[in-house]
């Protein structure tokens, strides 16, 4: 029983971790090498793509998507997509896709003369399923080794855990006050019933044995 309980909470914790890691913004320091757009036919990975730009026709099976090609500090490539999230999930309310693409193109640089750029993104890069992180913002930085403190994520997680804790405490109090007494009542009633039965059986067997004599 204990193992099942821990497995259950372990799975819940894993799902929560994955959810926040997927949705919350992250920062990378990269160098933009180029930008392009490509027609994408959405298949079984369609859940990882955002929706069409706000105001455009919906329900298309394919459309052109902006991409930003970058090189990380360690020399490995990282490709972002650049799509509107619009009014949908996750709630980034990003409508400035074309502006962002313009800024990213403007920040292009070569490996000989790198311009370091901080890209804010969400989602993961999964090569096996052609999933790209969605870039939210680009910003040129002077020092590529700067430390980034994710204040926003800290605040969001704090608020989330504070809310969970507050509801949990109130639920436990409610259970102690309202539900436990009822269960005790039922328990007591059952005990009385069992006691009564035992007593009756006692009387019955006494009556039986009175005949045996």
């Amino acid at each position, binding site marked *: 029983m204990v193992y099942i309980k821990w497995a259950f909470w372990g799975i819940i914790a894993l799902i929560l971790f994955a959810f926040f890691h997927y949705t919350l913004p992250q920062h990378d320091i990269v160098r933009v090498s180029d930008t392009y757009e490509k027609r994408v036919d959405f298949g079984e990975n369609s859940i990882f793509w955002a929706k069409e730009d706000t105001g455009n026709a919906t329900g298309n099976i394919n459309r052109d998507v902006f991409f930003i090609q970058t090189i990380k500090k360690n020399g490995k490539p990282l490709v972002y997509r650049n799509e509107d999230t619009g*009014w*949908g999930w996750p709630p980034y*309310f990003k*409508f*400035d896709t074309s502006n962002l693409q313009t800024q990213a193109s403007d920040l292009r640089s070569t490996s000989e003369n790198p311009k370091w750029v901080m890209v804010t993104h969400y989602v993961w890069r999964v090569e096996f399923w052609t999933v790209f992180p969605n870039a*939210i*913002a680009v910003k040129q930085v002077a020092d590529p080794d700067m430390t980034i403190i994710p204040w926003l994520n800290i605040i969001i997680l704090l608020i989330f855990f504070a809310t969970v804790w507050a509801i949990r405490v109130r639920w436990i109090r409610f259970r102690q006050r309202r539900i436990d007494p009822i269960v005790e009542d039922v328990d007591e009633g059952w005990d009385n019933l069992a006691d009564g039965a035992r007593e009756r059986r006692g009387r019955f067997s006494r009556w039986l044995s009175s005949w045996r004599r």
Partner: protein
Amino acid sequence: MLSLARLFLILFVGLTVAYVSVSLWSRQVRKGKLRSAWDEGDREYGEERDLYVRRGLEDYDDSFRRKLILLVYIVPLAVIAYIIYVVNYT
């Protein structure tokens, strides 16, 4: 426009649920406090216990404190407006 309407519908339903539950919970807390205040000998709203609690709650219904629960609607909308500004205009 359809997705905006959908967002507002979801927000409205979700926030209304939050608003109603917070209102009920807050009123319950207020009631408990009034009862314990009466038990400790306070007689600001009357001598009888039930009457005291009822008048105290009527006072609470008109209070600024209760109107603060409207922040349940205002804060998320303000946060959305702020996110739109930060993501698209800075």
